[in-house]
């Protein structure tokens, strides 16, 4: 794992690239001409006031907007140079490669084990029970949940605390070993201690997966990300190293938002 402190120099090719992406909900345009590169090495944060389109844009990256009636996406989004909206791209495979963690923990009403085994079963990743046990254990370990749940894997995933549920959802997402993990305000429903735990986890997962996190919380973006994109009214206003965005933003709108002038 190579964390390059001098971002901008000798960077590997981006994991995902978006060019001139527009999203419409019916007549309303929610995203206006967004172009952005997401690096495999970093945690990328999308910040901006409510309704700025950051979650909408995030959902374009694994085509979850397809599930919303009346949503239409144009422009180009590529994963490793493959157009994800091209007909050659299978949405099932795309979502296996680009995992997602939601705002509210949404474990399935199944056992902890079955929650984590869900994706591997769908995609046929385990050839035997022992295989599956191994996948479940390693996903739970990477999500930092193993020690807490190893003796009660058969209990319902919905019976855990909110923070545990969210880590279970992260374990579920990483069980299929995706290349990118999208996190849509993963801590907004959690208390500060559970939030800190998730932030540590994001840091541990960095480098292994490309991580994109949408957050309302600017301190969180500053703590966990290396790159930050500021969205406002459906447009990408500024995208730069997190340290630059938070200390020396170029756009006035970014500066106003960072300093709490609005949002």
């Amino acid at each position: 794992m190579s964390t390059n402190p001098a971002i901008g120099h000798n960077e590997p090719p981006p994991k995902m690239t978006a060019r001139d992406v527009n999203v419409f909900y019916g007549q309303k345009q929610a995203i206006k001409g967004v172009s952005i590169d997401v690096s495999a090495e970093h945690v990328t944060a999308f910040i901006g006031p409510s309704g700025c389109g950051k979650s909408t844009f995030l959902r374009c990256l694994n085509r979850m907007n397809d599930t919303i009636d009346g949503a239409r996406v144009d422009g180009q989004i590529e994963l490793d140079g493959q157009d994800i909206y091209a007909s050659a791209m299978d949405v099932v495979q795309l979502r296996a490669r680009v995992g997602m963690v939601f705002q509210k923990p949404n474990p399935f009403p199944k056992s902890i084990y079955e929650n984590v085994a869900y994706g591997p079963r769908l995609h046929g990743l385990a050839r035997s029970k022992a295989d599956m046990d191994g996948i479940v254990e390693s996903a739970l370990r990477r999500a930092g949940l193993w020690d807490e749940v190893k003796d009660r894997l058969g209990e319902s995933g919905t019976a855990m605390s909110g923070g545990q549920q969210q880590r279970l959802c992260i374990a579920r997402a990483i069980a299929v070993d995706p290349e990118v993990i999208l996190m849509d305000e993963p801590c907004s429903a959690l208390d500060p201690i559970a939030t800190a735990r998730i932030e540590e986890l994001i840091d541990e997962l960095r480098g292994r997966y490309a991580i994109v996190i949408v957050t309302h919380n600017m301190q969180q973006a500053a703590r966990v990300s290396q790159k930050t994109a500021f969205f406002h009214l459906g447009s990408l206003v500024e995208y730069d190293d997190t340290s630059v965005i938070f200390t020396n933003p170029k756009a006035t709108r970014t500066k106003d938002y960072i300093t709490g002038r609005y949002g």
Partner: protein
Amino acid sequence: MRMLIALALVLGLAGLAYLAGRARGNRMVAASGGRIGAVHSRPIYHGAYVAVLALAPALVVLAGWGISGERLIEGQVLGSLPAAERPTAPNDAQALMNEVRGLVNGDLPQAFNPLAPRLAPVYAAARANGDMLAGALAVALLAMGGLWGWSRLRPDFRARNRVETQVRALLLLASVVAILTTFGIVLSLIFESLRFFQMVSPVEFLTGLTWSPQTAIRADQVGSTGAFGAVPLFWGTIFIGAIIAMLVAIPLGLMSAIYLTQYADPRLRRWLKPVLELLAGVPTVVYGFFAALTVAPLIRGLAVALGMTDASSDSALAAGLVMGVMIIPFVSSMADDSLAAVPRAMRDGSLAMGATLSETVKKVMVPAALPGIIGGVLLAVSRAIGETMIVVMAAGLAANLTANPFASVTTVTTQIVALLTGDQEFDSAKTLSAFALGLVLFVMTLILNIYALSVVKRYREAYE
């Protein structure tokens, strides 16, 4: 007629009581200078309080007289006869009284029973006296209640709170009526069933395999020994309502709910769902026609084609299939609600894992909605086993204990209809067995409903 006048009078007087109470309230408000709180309740509450105190006892008297007055008058009229002439059998007394009433009301030009013309004036006088007395008592109570209420009105009298309490009592009464009616139905079923079980042992009824409810009028009649083993009926009911109908309704209902909630375009759903629910509004007798005239001959043709030359035109399959179609809306609407109640986050979570929509439905949505779906199915079963018209028209009357869907079977409801149609004597085991069957059916559906509702309720708690 007299009762109607009395009722109108009582209501009119209660209106006056209201006006009087309100007027007194208005005077108190005026005397206090109109400051808020100087008079505790507003004048309309004073009026309503007085009106309720006046009306309630009067209505109780009138209702009591309306319900039991006729019986009191009968006792009085029959009592006026010398003991020797008095009819002994209750039926005879009833017949006599009917003639008496007919004469008094002018419905009958002449009576057969020579006693009737003698009793007619007695009856007329008793009726008039009773009505007058009841009316006078009602008006007197009304006046007393009204005056007492009116005399209690003071500026600090809490009329509003009392009216609220009275309103609550009225609402409670309204909601208790349905429950009391159910109890009444259960009691009447139980009493008639007990009479039946004095003639036929419950063990034979519940475990016997032969159903042939013929009782002889003469001792030497053929088939004089009635057999009341109801197992073939219970089996027929379950076979048609809980097995064949559910084999149709569960898959179709569930799949249509899945289509409507998960796949259908919202515009399509907007008219498809109401159309499906319209099925529930078709009178069951219409389904009965369809089963008997269209489906049953088809099924019979099929059976003949399969080599069953003696296939019956009534078949369990015809009735069960049509009943299944009838039940589809119940299953699909409950399944629809349960699926729609599964949080969207659950669906998104599965789709985001790379599951297809059908995998998501199969592995996440249906399991999450399962308790609600099961509750809906149980309610549908209870509806199906209580269903009457379709089976009466299409299932037949032969009490066969068979698992052959092309055979004619009969159900509990069909037999009840057959047993109670036409003139019946209500002291024979044949007729009374209908009540025992009704009781069993009631208990079965009650248990199913209670269980289904508890399942549905537990499920609701999980998500709200």
